[in-house]
C-alpha cells in the first residue's frame, strides 16, 4: 500500500495547491513543499528500514535465483484494472525503484525550492504542474504493467509541456512543442512495440496481458524482436537523450524555468536509462546484443559530441544542457555493456548526474534571476562579485568533469571499467570524453566566473535558502564520492535480477567474461612466445 501513497500524495497535493493559491498564492508553495517532502521522507524511511530486506532479498534470490519473481519486491500492489484487455494495476518496488523514487521526490523538492522566488505568475497552477509531474514520475518508476507504464509515461509529458510553455524563457513555445513532438512521436513507437508484444505473446500463449513479468521471454522471430526493441529504444533514447535524438534537450533545458530544468535533468531523462534497464534489455536480450555495436557507437559519439557542443555554446544554460548529453552517453554505454560494474555505474551516474547537473541548472537560474542574461559573453569575473556562488559553481563544474572524490567519478569509472571488458575502444573513447569534459567545464568557469569583471554587474551572493540547497547537494556528492556503497547495495538486487533475465543470451556477463577470458588467454599465450 505504501506504493500508492507515493503516487497519491503528490497527486492529491496538486489540485490542493491550485485551490489554495486562489486565496493565498504563497500557501501553494508550502503545499507543494509538503507534497514532495512528505513522500521523500516516506521513501527515505522505507529505504532505511528496509536496508536489511534488500540485503536479504539479494542473499535469498541473488545469484542462481530464477530472475524476477514475486516476493523479491520490497512492496507491490497488484489489482485488476481493465481485466478483459489484460491490463492490471501492477506497481512494484525494488532497489532501483527506491533510488529513482528518492531522486524523483528530492528533485521535486528542489524544483519547488528553486522556484520559491523565481515564479510569481500563476503560482498555484505552476505547483499543480510540478506535483502532477512528480506523481506521474513516481508512477512511471513503480509500474510493471506495460500499459500502466505507458500511461504514466504520457501523463508526465503534459505538465512538463505546460511548465516549459508557460513559465519558460524567450523561445519557450518552440522549445515546448519540440520537446512534446520528440517525446510523443517516440513514445508512440514504444506503444506500437508494446502492443505488438502484447499480441505476439497473446497469440503464442493465449494469455493476453500487459504484465511485464509474464511478457518476459516471449518467443518471437529475431527480426521482429529487433524491430520491437527499436521501438522501445526510440522512446528511451529520445528521453535519455542519445545522439542523434538529443536536439530537443538543449532547447527544452534552455527555455524551461529552473524548476523545469531540474526535473528534466534530474529525473525525466533518467526514465530513458531506467526503461532500458527495466524493460528493453530484459525483454529483447538477443536484439540488444545485435544492436550493441551501434548502441555503443552512438553512446561514444554522444559523450564526445555532447562535450564539444557544450564547449561551443555561448549560452550558459545551453552549455549545461549539452553536458547532459555527454553524461547520458556514459549511461547508454554502461547499459549496452550490461555487466555488473557498468550497470552499477549507471545507477550511480543516474543519481550523481541528477545532483550535479540539477545544481548547475539551479545555479544558472539564480544567476539569471540576478543578472537577467544567460549569455556568457555578458558575464566574466563574477567570482569577485559573488565568491560563494563562484565557489559553488567551481565545485559542480569539477563534479561535472568527473573529479575523483565526487560521485560522478565513481559512476564514470565503473561504467568505463565495465565497458572495457566488453569493448576496449569504446572505453578508451569514453575516457577521452573526460578530457573534453575538462575543456568545457573549465571554459565555462573562465567565461562566467573568472577573469576581469567588466560589465559592472552587482548582485547579491547566495542567500541562506540557496546555500542550504547547494550544501545538501555538495554533501551528497562528496558522500557518494567516498562511500557509494549504500547506493550500490540498494541497486544490486535489481542489477543482478536484470542480468539473470538475460542469462540465456550472449549479453549475459558470463558469456562476455568467457569470451574475454578466451581473448586474454589467447593474447597471453601469443605474447608469451
Amino acid at each position, binding site marked *: 500500500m505504501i506504493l500508492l501513497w507515493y503516487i497519491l500524495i503528490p497527486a492529491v497535493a496538486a489540485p490542493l495547491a491550485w485551490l489554495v493559491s486562489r486565496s493565498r498564492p504563497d500557501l501553494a508553495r508550502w503545499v507543494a513543499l509538503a507534497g514532495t517532502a512528505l513522500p521523500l521522507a516516506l521513501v527515505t524511511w522505507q529505504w532505511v528500514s528496509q536496508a536489511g530486506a534488500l540485503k536479504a532479498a539479494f542473499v535469498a534470490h541473488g545469484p542462481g535465483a530464477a530472475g524476477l519473481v514475486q516476493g523479491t519486491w520490497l512492496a507491490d500492489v497488484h489489482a485488476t484494472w481493465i481485466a478483459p484487455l489484460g491490463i492490471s494495476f501492477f506497481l512494484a518496488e525494488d532497489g532501483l525503484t527506491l533510488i529513482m523514487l528518492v531522486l524523483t521526490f528530492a528533485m521535486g523538492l528542489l524544483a519547488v525550492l528553486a522556484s520559491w522566488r523565481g515564479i510569481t505568475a500563476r503560482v498555484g497552477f505552476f505547483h499543480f504542474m510540478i506535483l502532477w509531474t512528480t506523481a506521474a514520475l513516481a508512477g512511471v518508476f513503480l509500474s510493471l504493467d506495460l500499459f500502466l507504464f505507458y500511461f504514466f509515461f504520457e501523463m508526465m509529458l503534459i505538465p512538463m509541456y505546460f511548465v516549459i510553455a508557460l513559465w519558460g524563457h524567450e523561445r519557450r513555445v518552440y522549445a515546448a512543442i519540440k520537446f512534446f513532438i520528440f517525446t510523443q512521436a517516440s513514445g508512440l513507437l514504444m506503444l506500437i512495440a508494446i502492443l505488438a508484444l502484447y499480441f505476439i505473446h497473446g497469440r503464442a500463449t493465449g494469455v493476453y496481458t500487459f504484465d511485464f513479468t509474464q511478457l518476459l521471454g516471449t518467443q518471437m522471430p529475431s527480426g521482429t524482436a529487433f524491430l520491437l526493441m527499436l521501438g522501445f529504444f526510440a522512446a528511451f533514447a529520445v528521453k535519455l537523450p542519445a545522439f*542523434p535524438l*538529443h*536536439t530537443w534537450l*538543449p532547447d527544452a533545458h534552455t527555455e524551461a524555468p529552473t524548476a523545469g530544468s531540474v526535473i528534466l535533468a534530474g529525473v525525466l531523462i533518467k526514465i530513458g536509462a531506467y526503461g532500458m534497464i527495466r524493460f528493453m534489455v530484459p525483454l529483447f536480450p538477443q536484439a540488444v546484443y545485435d544492436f550493441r555495436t551501434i548502441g555503443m557507437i552512438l553512446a561514444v559519439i554522444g559523450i564526445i*559530441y555532447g562535450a*564539444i*557542443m557544450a*564547449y*561551443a*555554446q555561448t549560452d550558459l544554460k545551453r552549455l549545461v544542457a549539452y553536458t547532459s548529453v555527454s553524461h547520458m552517453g556514459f549511461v547508454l554505454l554502461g547499459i549496452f555493456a550490461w*555487466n*555488473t*560494474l557498468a550497470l*552499477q555505474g549507471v545507477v550511480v551516474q543516474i543519481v550523481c548526474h541528477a545532483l550535479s547537473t540539477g545544481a548547475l541548472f539551479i545555479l544558472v537560474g539564480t544567476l539569471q534571476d540576478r543578472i537577467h542574461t544567460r549569455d556568457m559573453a555578458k558575464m566574466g*569575473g563574477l*567570482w*569577485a562579485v559573488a565568491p560563494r556562488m563562484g565557489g559553488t559553481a*567551481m565545485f559542480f563544474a*569539477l563534479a561535472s568533469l568527473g*573529479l*575523483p*572524490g565526487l560521485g560522478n*567519478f*565513481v559512476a564514470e*569509472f*565503473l561504467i*568505463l*571499467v*565495465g565497458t*572495457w*571488458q566488453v569493448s576496449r575502444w569504446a*572505453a*578508451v573513447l569514453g*575516457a*577521452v570524453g*573526460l*578530457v573534453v569534459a*575538462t*575543456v568545457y567545464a*573549465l571554459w565555462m*568557469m*573562465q567565461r562566467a*566566473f*573568472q*577573469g*576581469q*569583471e567588466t560589465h559592472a554587474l552587482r548582485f547579491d551572493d547566495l542567500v541562506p535558502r540557496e546555500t542550504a540547497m547547494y550544501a545538501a547537494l555538495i554533501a551528497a556528492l562528496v558522500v557518494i564520492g*567516498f*562511500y*557509494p*556503497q549504500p547506493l*550500490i547495495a540498494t541497486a*544490486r538486487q535489481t542489477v543482478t535480477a536484470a542480468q539473470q533475465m538475460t542469462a540465456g543470451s550472449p549479453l549475459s556477463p558470463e558469456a562476455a567474461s568467457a569470451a*574475454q577470458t578466451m581473448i*586474454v588467454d589467447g*593474447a*597471453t599465450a*601469443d*605474447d*608469451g612466445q
Partner: protein
Amino acid sequence: MLQLLWIVPALPAAGFVVLLLLNRHLSRRATALIGAGSVGLSAVVAILIAVSFITSPPPGDAYRQVLWTWFDTGGLAPQIAFYLDAMSVVFMVVITFVGFLIHLYSTEFMERDEGFTRFFMYMNLFVASMLVLVLADNLLLLYLGWEGVGMCSYLLIAFWQKDVQNVYCGRKAFIVTRVGDTALIVGLFLLFTQLHTLEIQPLMAGAAKNWAAGSGVAVAAAALLLGGAVGKSAQLPLQTWLPDAMAGPTPVSALIHAATMVTAGVYLIARTNVLFTLAPDVRLAVAIIGTVTLLYACFSALAQHDIKRVLAYSTMSQIGYMFLALGVAGWSAAIFHFMTHAFFKALLFLAAGVVIEALGGEHDIFKMGGLRRKLPTAFWAFIIGAASLSALPLITDGFYSKDLIIETSLGAVDGNAWLWLGALAGSLLTSIYAFRLVFVVFFGEQQTPVTLHPRWRMKLPLVVLSVLSVVGGFVWLPGWMGGFHPFETFLDTALPVTQTVAGSFAYTGVAALLTSLIAVVGVALATVWLVESRAALARFAARPTPHDVQTFWLNGWGFDWLYEHVFVIPVKWFARVARGDLVEPAFSGIAWLNLQAWRALSASQNGQLRVYIGVAGVGLAVIVAFVVLR
C-alpha cells in the same frame, strides 16, 4: 605510532574544511595558523611515524591501514586504505616538511593578497591530495590523489583569476595533464580486467606471476601508466603546461610545480616498478624520454628571460634525470634525486619569490641585477640552490643524487653510453643556465629598486632549505667516498636493487671526477660569458642564426605552436561549425518539409465555395467511376 598514519593526510584535509566553512569569519592570523599549522602538525606526525618506522620496522617492512571499503561491486572492491613503506615514508616526509616550510613562507608572501583564505584552502587541499597519492594502497585511490593534485594545481595556477591569462595557464595545465591521466585510467581498466584487483601490492605480485617479461599486456599496461606519468611530470611530449604554470603565486610553483606534484610521475613509475621491469621496451622509452626531456629543457632554460620560467624548465630537466634513472632501473636513485631536488628547487623558487616580491613583482631577469648586497639572504640561498642544481661536487646534495643517476645511466645493466653522454651534456648545460641566472640577477648593475625586504617567516624556510640542500645528500655517498648509504638500505626494503655491471667505468673515481669537472666547467663558462665578456655574448646573440635559435628555445621548441595547430584550432573550428548542432538540420528538415506540405495544402483551402464544390464533384465522379466501373 603507525596507527596515526591516517592523521597525516586528514590534518590538511581538515584544515581545508575548516577554512572552507569559516571562510569569512576568520582573521588573517587565524587563517595562517590553521593553514600552515595543520600542515606543520601533519609534518610532525609524519616525522614521528617515519622515526617509528625506521627504528622499529613493521613486519614485511610495510604497514597497511584500511579505513573503509570505498565500494564493492562486480569483483571491484577498492578500499580507502593507506600503505606505508620506505618509499612512501620518504615522499610523505618530504611533502609534509617542505610543504610546511612553503606554507610558512606563504603566510608572509601572500599576506597582502585578498584571496588569503582561498589560497590556504587550496594549498591545504593540495597537501592532503598529494599525501593521498603517495600513501594510496590501491591505484584507484592513487588516481583520486592524482586528480586531486591536478585540480589544486589548476586552482592555484589560476589563483589570481582576475587575469584571464592566468586562468588560461591553469586550464592548460589541467587539460594537458588530464590527457595523460586518461592514459593512466585506461591503464587501470586494463590492469583490473586482467588481474581483478587494483590494490598495488597484489597487483604487482599478480603481474609478476602471470605475465611474461615483454608480453603485450605488460607493455600496454606499462605504456599506459607511463602516459599518465609523462603528463603529470611534464615530460615530452606533454611538457608544455609546466612553463605556463608559473602564472601561479611563487610558493605554489615551489610546492606543486617543483617539489611535489610534478614528481608524482616518478612516484607512480617507481611504485609500479614491477610492470616496468616486465616491459623493458617501455622502460627504455622512459629512459629516452627522460634524457631527451632533460636536454630539451636545458636548452629552453638557457633562452628564458622570466626567472620562474628558467626554474620551470630546470624542474622539467631534473625530472628528466629522475625518469632517466627510472628507465635504467635506478629506482632508489630516482627517489634520492626527488628528495634532494625537492630541497634545492623549493629553495630556488622561494629565493626567486623573495626577489620577485622585493622588486614589486618583476619577473624579467634582465631588469634585475646587482641584488647581491640588497638581498643577502636570497642571494646566498640562491647560490646554494644553484650550486646544488648544478651539482657542484661534494658540498651540495644535488651532486650526490645527480652523480648517482649519471653513474647508473652507464653502470646499470640497462644503461648505455648514449644515455650517459646525454646526462653529462645536461649537467654541463644545467650549470651554465643556473649560474647565468645567478650572475644576471645578483651581479652587475642594479636595474630596479628594492622595495620590500623579507621578514623571518620568509627567511626561515630559506635557511632551513639551504641547510638541507647542503647536507641532504650525505645520506647516500658514492662508493669511492666510503659507501655510506643508509638511504639506499632503507629504500631497498621497498624497491628492487639496481642491477649493475660489475667493474663498470661508471663507478670509478675517474668517472666521478669527470662529472664533477663538467659541472665546474659549466659554472666557469657561465662566469666567463656573463661576467667577463657579457657584451661579446650580447653581440653574438644578436646575430641572425643565434637569435633565431634563441627564439626557438625561448618558445619551447615550438611545441605550443604545434599543439595549437594540431589539436586546439581544429577542435575550435569544429566547435564553431557545429555550434548550432550538426544533427539539428535533419530535424528542422523534417519540420521544413511539413511546413511546405502545409503551405501546399493550405493553398487549396482558398475559401472559394464553388471551387470546393467543383473539387467535391470531381471526387464524386471519381468515386462513382470506381464503383460503377469496377
